């Protein structure tokens, strides 16, 4: 009995330790993710995008509670990075709610959605992202509009 409990405890410890080793750093060189510049570039564009949003009077009230709370801000930032990274073929996994779930009951208007897209385009322009990559990225994010506006 004692030996079996010991063995169980050792196996448990080993399995939990091995779970830390599941990082996947593989990437293929032709993806949009690579052409955008990888996680560092996506993170820089996301920071620029979010500062644009916070400065934008049309939509910044929507983000007031998030910006006031560092943990929520960090969650939003990481979710955005993961969404762009995963959508562009990178090694990230989006861990947030679906667009429909997260925008339900918010009654977001077309004008607000367009303002957000404008802030994203401004961030991409600031980093001189080529038109081809910009169009590809917007084509990935664009179809989400139906899950965001008017919900």
């Amino acid at each position, binding site marked *: 009995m004692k030996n079996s*409990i010991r063995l169980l405890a050792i196996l448990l*410890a080993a399995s939990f330790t091995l779970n830390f080793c599941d990082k996947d750093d593989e990437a293929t060189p032709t993806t949009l993710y690579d052409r955008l510049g990888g996680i560092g570039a996506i993170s820089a564009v996301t*920071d620029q995008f979010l*500062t644009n949003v916070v400065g934008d009077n049309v939509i*910044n009230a929507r983000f007031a509670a998030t910006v006031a709370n*560092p943990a929520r801000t960090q969650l939003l930032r*990481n979710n955005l990075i993961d969404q762009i990274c995963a959508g562009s073929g990178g090694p990230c996994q989006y861990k947030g709610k679906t667009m429909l779930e997260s925008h339900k009951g918010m009654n977001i208007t077309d004008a607000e959605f367009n303002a957000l897209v404008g802030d994203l385009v401004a961030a991409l322009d600031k980093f001189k992202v080529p038109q081809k990559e910009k169009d590809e990225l917007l084509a990935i994010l664009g179809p989400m509009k139906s899950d965001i506006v008017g919900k």
Partner: protein
Amino acid sequence: MRKIHLLLLVLAVVCLGTWMGMRKPYSPSDDLPLVTYQAFDVAGINDEAGEALAQKVREWPGITATTFNPSSDLLVLSYTEEHTEAALLARIQANTSVAVSKKVFEKPAGPACPVPMSLILAFPTYLFWAGVFFSTCLLFSFYFLPFQRRFNFD
């Protein structure tokens, strides 16, 4: 003693099992440094000076992005943990002639979760360390106590 072993085992399995269930898959964004976003009101600054100020602030180490929006008169920064809001406010003020103040957004109406978001996000980590603690106690009770009895420490 057997009851204590069983209790420790159950606690360790429950904590680590729940942690495994709640654990999010790894993503490279998990390794990025934490940043904070802060808006500063720079009302009265002209467009060129505002852009120049944003550009200057962007060059400071630890600033990851800046935006000056002339229609809202806001200078928004994202910065890493090496900066504090008060120090940044003072440093920005030293670089412009207009009054700079922290922008306080109106609190949104409606219900808010009473549990702090930081606690919710950290909960899986607490579970993991609780599981490690109970597992360690279990192993310790197997190996240390017989050793203690052998040498009559108690």
